[in-house]
């Protein structure tokens, strides 16, 4: 696993690094510390990472511009910040976890465990999806989504207004961040329950789902039972 830590407090950065190293052990491929945002961004331009550990208030600069920029990327972001009042907003933007300072090893490990696991049970999930659009970042409200389709390492966001956007995060990662009314109906599709209309059983035990706008999507055989039980 490749990790980047953006933190302007040297002592804290080293503490995080130490904990990451001891937790991941051999799984850790690389860990880098940047003490300012420009350095962090230039590092990201040249390196692929799997996880970003980010302090939201760097060298007197604060704000969600940094966050928008980071959550639009393919990797997961964990915020480590002194400003607990920003936690709700951070979750709305789609961060994996928010670790308030001061933190101990247990709390940081709890955050790391979310990488492979379930959504944060406490939070209601993200409200926005940040997508890169011709250099700038655009925010898409989660409620405007019709469904999401996996496309390799990317995802296609199909919106209620018929438009389509690309997101850098994989379907698996998005599923961890989205609110729980988003159902995985297929290895390549996630649909909000409210948009579902009817399930069809086709010949040869193939199942499909018609959405309210008429779109028909396949339902994974293994997921049919689960979905049926939730809907009925």
């Amino acid at each position, binding site marked *: 696993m490749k990790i980047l830590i953006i933190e302007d407090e040297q*002592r*804290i950065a080293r503490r995080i690094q130490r904990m990451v190293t001891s937790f991941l052990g051999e799984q850790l491929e690389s860990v880098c510390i940047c003490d300012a945002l420009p350095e962090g961004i230039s590092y990201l331009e040249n390196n692929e990472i799997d996880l970003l550990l980010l302090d939201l208030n760097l060298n*007197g*600069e604060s704000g969600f511009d940094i966050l928008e920029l980071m959550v639009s990327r393919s990797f997961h972001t964990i915020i480590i910040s*002194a*400003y607990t009042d920003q936690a709700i907003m951070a979750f709305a933007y789609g961060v994996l976890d928010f670790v308030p*300072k001061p933190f101990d090893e247990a709390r940081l490990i709890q955050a790391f465990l979310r990488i492979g696991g379930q959504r944060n049970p406490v939070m209601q999930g993200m409200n926005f999806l940040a997508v890169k659009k011709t250099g700038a970042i655009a925010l898409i409200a989660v409620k405007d989504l019709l469904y999401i389709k996996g496309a390799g390492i990317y995802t296609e966001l199909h919106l209620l207004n018929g438009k389509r956007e690309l997101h850098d995060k994989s379907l698996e990662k998005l599923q961890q961040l989205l609110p729980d009314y988003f159902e995985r109906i297929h290895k390549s599709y996630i649909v909000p329950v409210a948009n579902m209309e009817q399930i069809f059983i086709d010949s040869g035990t193939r199942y499909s789902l018609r959405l309210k706008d008429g779109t028909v999507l396949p339902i994974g055989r293994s997921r049919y039972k689960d979905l049926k039980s939730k809907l009925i």
Partner: protein
Amino acid sequence: MQRLVLLFVVMLSLCSCKSEVRFQASSPVFKTGDDLKWANKHHDDNSWKTDRDNKRDEVFWTRYHISLNSKTEVNKHLGLEVYAFGAFEVYWDGVKIGENGKFLLEASREVPGTYRSCYLLPDSLNSPGLHLLALRGTQYYKSDLHRSPGVRIEYYAESLTRPLIIASIMNLMAGVFLMVALYYLFLLINSNKKNHATLVFSITCFLFLLLLIAEYCKFYVDIPYPYFYTRLEIIGLLTFAIALLVPLYFSMQFNFNKKGWLIGILCCVLILVYLINYRRYDLTARILSGIMLLASMVVAVQAISNKEKGGVMILCGLMISFLINNILFYDFGIFICFTIIVLCMLYLHTIRAKEDDRAYQASLLLSSRLKLQLLKKNIQPHFIKNTLTSLIDWVEESPKQGVVFINALAAEFDLMNEISEATLIPISSEIALCKAHLLVMEFRKEIKYIWSDFGIEASEMIPPAILHTLLENGITHSMPFEEDKIYFELTFKRTENHRAYTFITKAKNRSGRSGKRGTGFQYVAARLTESYGDKWEFESGEIAVGWFVRININD
């Protein structure tokens, strides 16, 4: 206010009151010498002169032919008012009806009478038709002064009560001025802020009071005729002082740009007018008050162009006063005019008082906001949470160092707590605070911070936490050149007129550090303004070795 309006109405109605007694008096004729026959109605005075001889030691006679209107009511007693200098006996149709002062044949022993005197006319001699008034007297003092004598006939009761009524109204007004003068004087004495305009206002009101007394004391104080002009001179001088103070007051209240020039020019013009019209008492006073009003109007016009509150109101008041000053009979006009001016001044004063109060409240609010901001420095999440996180790490890794860290933090808290109440603290406390902060930050940032200062005078005072704020900015926006070291240098220089603090951060500026002035600067600026008003300058910028900030305080 309502009382003053009522006063105006009463005064105006008095001005319009006309005595029902109609009479016509010939011009007086004079003759030096003494003969009781000259009191006789039928004596031929065709050869008498129209002016008096200038012989102070000799007796002279004055004669008037007076024709009484036939409509006069017979059942009312008539009174005769004589306006003349000297000591004299008064004869009406050959009958002696009274005496003003003590007339003696030996003029040098005369007892001077008053300028105005009043006599009851015998009922038997007040029938309509021609009558003769003869004055037998001397003018030993100021005999070169030829003030033309005057006579007036009206009902005797009225001629006694009219001055009393006027005097009572004027005394009432004088009381108002006295109260206002005293109130503002007490206000000045007991207020923490010595406002010079209040003093000027109080003095002006007091001078109005004196002017009223000087003008109307003639009704109840017998002033011997040699001192007649003394009173007028006092009135002139009082008017002069008021004419200077009123525009000064307005220029102070309206923050007139060229106050000195205005008052200087005004003073010269007033002196000139005074000298040119010397011994033309009422005229001088009227011109002086006219000039006063014009000068005040200049100030009010500038105030209007500067959009100052109350400017239009004051200009209107001044214009009305100007009209009254030029239209009405001086004795009344001047006081109506002055009353309007005092009302204008009072109005302006209340506006200023309100503004002062608002400014004071705002400054209190600012002070408490700044105090809060200072206290918040150490409990705001960025500082406290990052410090605590680092602290946990130090404690886990090296408990001994952890203790040193905790002590450093405690020292910074102590110092912060100590200075938080004050608006100015000794520079030594501020430096101690900076050093404590650096110690804490060394533990957090793992950078060596090196502090040095030059030319510091330990007793010098400075607003709290402004250097601390500059230091925080230095830490946040800099990174070490090499060896993980950042240097801070504080230099103090005092010259005759100002004090300068130069604060240099020797380090590499982080990208994006600009002269942009954020909350840190706002705090510093607000603190400097709180203590020094606008007598400070702040400059900052990038230099080869890092960053510099200079604060100049002008004394």
